[in-house]
């Protein structure tokens, strides 16, 4: 095929070559030369059929190119994430899920323990807030417990339980100390009021 017959072919092929620069490095390295050769061949063939055919080819390529580039970047990013987090998959193993929760489970109680002082009250000490905390604590604990049991990581249960018991007992102490007593019945009467 004679490329000199159609000056537009040169321009379109050059534009296509330029657009290949937007692809991720890996794809460029593997396929850029091949893609360019195939596109050039296709453009020459289209040029022989006429200008309309050539511009249709250019239009179709321009239409699909951004989608292909975005898709490639997304795919490359996913591949990269799988290298960093090898357990990131549709069926995340329980160990990975639990490990990812661990910082949050440690940070919450740690914050309470560190900032605790006798007579301390949080900014929002409403009953709703207490129930919310209690409910969240139980929910997280139950989820964590089930996760551990499923993986037979029974050894972690006492540690986590004591950790959360410490934080929840601090919460009770906080309420009771604001009332001047640490009697459990007083705490519950305080809550139920």
């Amino acid at each position: 095929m004679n490329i000199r017959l159609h000056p537009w072919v040169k321009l379109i092929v050059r534009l296509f070559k330029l657009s290949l620069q937007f692809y991720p490095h890996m794809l460029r390295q593997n396929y850029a030369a091949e893609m360019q050769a195939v596109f050039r061949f296709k453009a020459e063939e289209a040029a022989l059929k006429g200008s309309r055919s050539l511009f249709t080819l250019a239009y179709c390529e321009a239409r699909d190119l951004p989608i292909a580039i975005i898709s490639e970047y997304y795919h490359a990013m996913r591949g990269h994430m799988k290298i960093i987090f090898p357990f990131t998959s549709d069926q995340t193993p329980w160990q990975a899920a639990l490990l990812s929760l661990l910082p949050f489970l440690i940070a919450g109680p740690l914050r309470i323990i560190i900032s605790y002082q006798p007579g301390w009250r949080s900014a929002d000490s409403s009953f709703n807030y207490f129930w919310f905390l209690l409910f969240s604590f139980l929910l997280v604990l139950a989820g964590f417990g089930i996760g551990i049991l499923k993986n037979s990581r029974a050894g972690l249960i006492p540690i986590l339980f004591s950790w959360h018991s410490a934080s929840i007992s601090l919460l009770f102490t906080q309420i009771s100390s604001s009332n001047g007593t640490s009697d459990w019945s007083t705490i519950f009467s305080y809550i139920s009021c």
Partner: protein
Amino acid sequence: MQVDSFPMPLSESTYFILLSLASGPKHGYAVLKDTSELSAGRISLSVSTLYTALGRLQEQQLIERVEPLAEEPAPGLPRKVYRLTRPGQKAPDAEVQRLKKLLSAYRQQLGTESA
């Protein structure tokens, strides 16, 4: 759904690419032509879409890129060709079986043979 380590269902373009390679190793341009012919002109893959799909298929080990064994390609065309791997040979069959099951369920439910 995952069957024999390849993703199911296959997309239409993937199916036609695999079907094109079923008749033997081909370079990208031949695959482009084939997909258009096999789909009766309904699917016209752009070069970028084709190579994105070929890249995925290579990753899934359904196809592999090899040096051409015998004949040289036309001048200007890439020397490397694509061919189906063993799982790649099974993939179109598995897709057809899947579609047959869908069709069978459709016929069973609607009680018609015309579908």
